[in-house]
Each structure stands twice: as structure tokens, then as C-alpha cells.
């Protein structure tokens, strides 16, 4: 489905990712773990079209998509949820979803019911400026926004970072409900989430994926994973 071969990404002369290979199969939930500065966010941004690769290829259903603009990739079904939890703060919660629905060409009623299904409590915040939401509510709004339309590949960057345990449970529930319905690459440091949701795990270090873990017992072994964080 999504195939990345020999990917190289640089900020100016500083190479951040080099010779990276990754595969994402339909309906698969792949997690990327690794220390800060490993290049995880850069990788997601490159797949989402926000950064242009210096070399290598990214193919989606045998179609080359490397360097395509994010709006074009969004129309193919790619959705990127950034780490910074940046909602459109001056717009209402409903307007945030409305923009996603407009971009995806989906009727607003359908989009809104999709979001309320994953997080019914959002109805309470419907007409509130999104900037007034808490960090956890913002993350849920962003994930909800990403699910509008017909997403095929979700790229989610550190969804539980800095959030309270109760919100992390909400996000875990939302992500687990998405399993098999959509493919996802999720950067995450919370190993309890990773262990329970991952179909495969990639370990990233210094701009490359140094290890792939697909065995269920290895995925469940947190002591092994902790050494990479």
C-alpha cells in the first residue's frame, strides 16, 4: 500500500533522514518509537507532503507521491495530525470540522456525526472557540478532523504527549476503534499504548529505522522497547 525506499530528507545541509525503508500494509497500525531528534516527526511530515525528500521514493498504491503537496495527498486520503496540538483556535469546534468536511467534500452532518461517534462529549464544545479547549480535547478534535472524509492513511505524531491519564484512555479507545478500518503510522512514546495497539513497531535512531518488531510477544515485551527511548 505505502512503500518508502531509500528516503533521504535534509534541512538545508543537515541530513535528518537517510536511506530509510518502510512499508505500511492496508489496515495496519504501525508505531514508530525512538528518542527525541531521531527524525520521527520529519518522517511523518515528509510522508504528509510538508517536507520534500532529498532522495528516495514514496509510493502509494504503486503511484509515486514523493514531494507532492499536502493538499493533493489529503485528497488521496492522507491525514496528518501534528504533534503541536494546533487547532484553528479562533474558529469554533464545529467550524474546525466544517473546514475538514469542506476539504474532503463530505456533507457537514455526516462529518459531525462521525466526530461525535468517536467522542460524544464534543457536542458540549460545539460552539466554543477551539482555542478554549484543553490539550486533550484539542488532540481529540484533531484526530476527529483527520477522520472526516475517507481517510486511508493516518499519520499521527505523539498523540498522548503531555496529556492526563484519563484523556490518554480516551485517545486509546479512539485509536483502537480505528484499527483495521484505516492504516496508520503513529509516532508514540507511551509504551502501554504502543504495546496494546501496534501491529508492527519500527525503532528509529539517528534518521533511520534500525529495527522492525512484528512478533506479538516481542511487541508485548516493554523492557525491550524501553531501551530505545
Amino acid at each position, binding site marked *: 500500500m505505502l512503500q518508502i525506499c531509500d528516503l533521504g530528507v535534509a534541512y538545508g545541509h543537515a541530513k535528518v533522514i537517510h536511506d530509510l525503508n518502510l512499508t505500511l500494509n492496508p489496515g495496519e497500525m504501525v508505531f514508530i518509537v525512538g528518542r527525541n531528534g531521531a527524525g520521527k516527526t520529519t518522517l511523518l511530515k515528509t510522508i*504528509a*507532503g*510538508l517536507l520534500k525528500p532529498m532522495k528516495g521514493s514514496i509510493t502509494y498504491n504503486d503511484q509515486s507521491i514523493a514531494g507532492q*503537496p*499536502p*493538499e493533493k495527498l*489529503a*485528497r488521496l486520503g*492522507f*491525514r*496528518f495530525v*501534528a504533534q503541536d496540538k*494546533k487547532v*484553528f*483556535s*479562533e*474558529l469554533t469546534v464545529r*467550524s*474546525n470540522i*466544517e*473546514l*475538514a468536511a*469542506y*476539504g*474532503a467534500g463530505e456533507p457537514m452532518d455526516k462529518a459531525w456525526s462521525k466526530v461525535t461517534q468517536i467522542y460524544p462529549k464534543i457536542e458540549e464544545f460545539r460552539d466554543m472557540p477551539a482555542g478554549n479547549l484543553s490539550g486533550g480535547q484539542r488532540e481529540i478534535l484533531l484526530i476527529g*478532523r483527520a477522520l472526516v*472524509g475517507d481517510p486511508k492513511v493516518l499519520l499521527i505524531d505523539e498523540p498522548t504527549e503531555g496529556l492526563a491519564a484519563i484523556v490518554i484512555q480516551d485517545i486509546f479507545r479512539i485509536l483502537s476503534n480505528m484499527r483495521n478500518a484505516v492504516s496508520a503510522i503513529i509516532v508514540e512514546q507511551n509504551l502501554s499504548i504502543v504495546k496494546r495497539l501496534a501491529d508492527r513497531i519500527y525503532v528509529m535512531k539517528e534518521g533511520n529505522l534500525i529495527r522492525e518488531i512484528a512478533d506479538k510477544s516481542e511487541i508485548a515485551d516493554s523492557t525491550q522497547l524501553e531501551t530505545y527511548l
Partner: protein
Amino acid sequence: MIQTIVYGFTIGAILYFFSVGLALTFGTMRIINFAHGMVYAVGVYLFIAFLKVFDDSFLLALAASVIAMLPVAYIIERFIIRRLYGEGLDYAIIATYGVLLIGTDAIKMLWGTTSQPVNDPVGISIEVAEFGLPVYRIAIFACAVVLFLALRVFFKRSIIGRIVVAALEDSDGVRCLGLDVNKYFSIIFVLGSALAVLGGILYAPISSAEPYMGFHILLLAFAVVIVGGMGNLNGTFVAALALGMVMAITGRFWSQAANAMVFVVMALVLIVRSRKLDTD
């Protein structure tokens, strides 16, 4: 003093008409657009030409010149501004300053260097506390208030407005929703340019048209955008009126310092803001 206050609101209103486009261009595209001054000046000269065509009908000439400048603004955005997205501010300044110079020289070539007066289309005054206040100036201020309210409705209620508000905050986020921000930036650029032309035409009867008019208002408008906050539409309105008032009041007591005082206020605002940032 009443005359000074009315004059201050009038100048503030004109600054607002001009600065809205500049603020939006910077807020959405992160581009300092000197070409805005060219659109403003050429629009006024076209208006003077159209006055002859339409038998001195102010409104017809105004509509014709605003409409005539729309494709000019679109061409500037499509072929110059769009190539500058993501480039350094210096490239944008050089390219758009070049457009301003070309426009100014084109005016000098086509209409000459002498200033051209424009008649007050209303031509009547009302008496307030024994002072005669030109109705035209009050009308300009009223137009600015109407524009401010209309833009608020536009950015709050219309889908294009909401996309632009979202893009002002996070254009990458908007793009990741499948929305081509360039298309909406073009619309906003053309809208901003039309408002600049409108402001120039409204101001012409108070001042006069001269080839360097785009340069003069640009400097003042940059001060408005900086004081109001880049891309902050409410801030732009308040800053334009406040700086217009600063110009009018300073000009009443010390005419040579009227423009300079605007930049003194701008400097003070920047100092206060930087201290606030330090304490935050």
C-alpha cells in the same frame, strides 16, 4: 479641534482601507508586499481617466477603476507573489519593490509628474459647534466602519473567510485538510488590492493624485500593520484609526512632524511588546 478629530478619523479610515490588504498578505503569505502601493496609485490614476469617460460620475469611475485593477492584482499575485512563497523576506521586498517602481514610472510616463486634483464629490459641509465639517470626510469614515463590519461578517460566516482565518494561524494545517491555500490567498490578495484602490480613490479628493502617492502611504501602512499586529484584522482597524488621529493631532500643532510621530508611536509599541515578551 472637532475638525482635527474628523480629519484624524478620515486619515485613519484611508489607512485602514489600504492596510487591510497589506495585513492579510503578510498574515497569510508571510510576504511584505510593496506592490500594494503600485495598485493603489495606478488605481487612482485610472479613476481620473475614467472620470472623463463617465462624465465626472464619481461612483461609475470608482467602480470601473476597481474592476479594472482586479486582473492587475491577480497577475501580480499569480506570477510574482506566488513564486515568493517560502522564500526569504528580502526576495519579496526586492520583487515587489520592483513592481512599485515600474508602476510609478508608468504613471509618470502616461500622466506626467504633476499632481492631479480630484473634486470633492459631495461638496457640502455641515455646521457643528460653528465649524464646517465636510460631509465627504464623515462619509469616508462611515465607509471604513461599514467595511470593518462587513469583513468581520465575511471572515466569521463565509467558508472562504473561515479558511483564511484558519490559514492565518496554521496554513500547513489547512493544506493537510485538502484545501489549496494558494487559491484562497489569491482571492484575499485581489480583495485587499481592490480595497487599496478604493481607499486611494476616496482619499484623492482630500489630497490629490501624484506618482509617488503609493510610496507615501506604504510607509504609514506598514506602521499600522506593525502596531495592529500582522494579520490581525481587528488590530489593523484600531491601529489605523489611532495612527490617523496621531497624524491629525500632531499635524495641527506641528505639521512637519505629523508623519514622523506615527513612527514614534510604532517604535513605542514595539518596545512595549518586546518587554512584554521578555517578561512572558
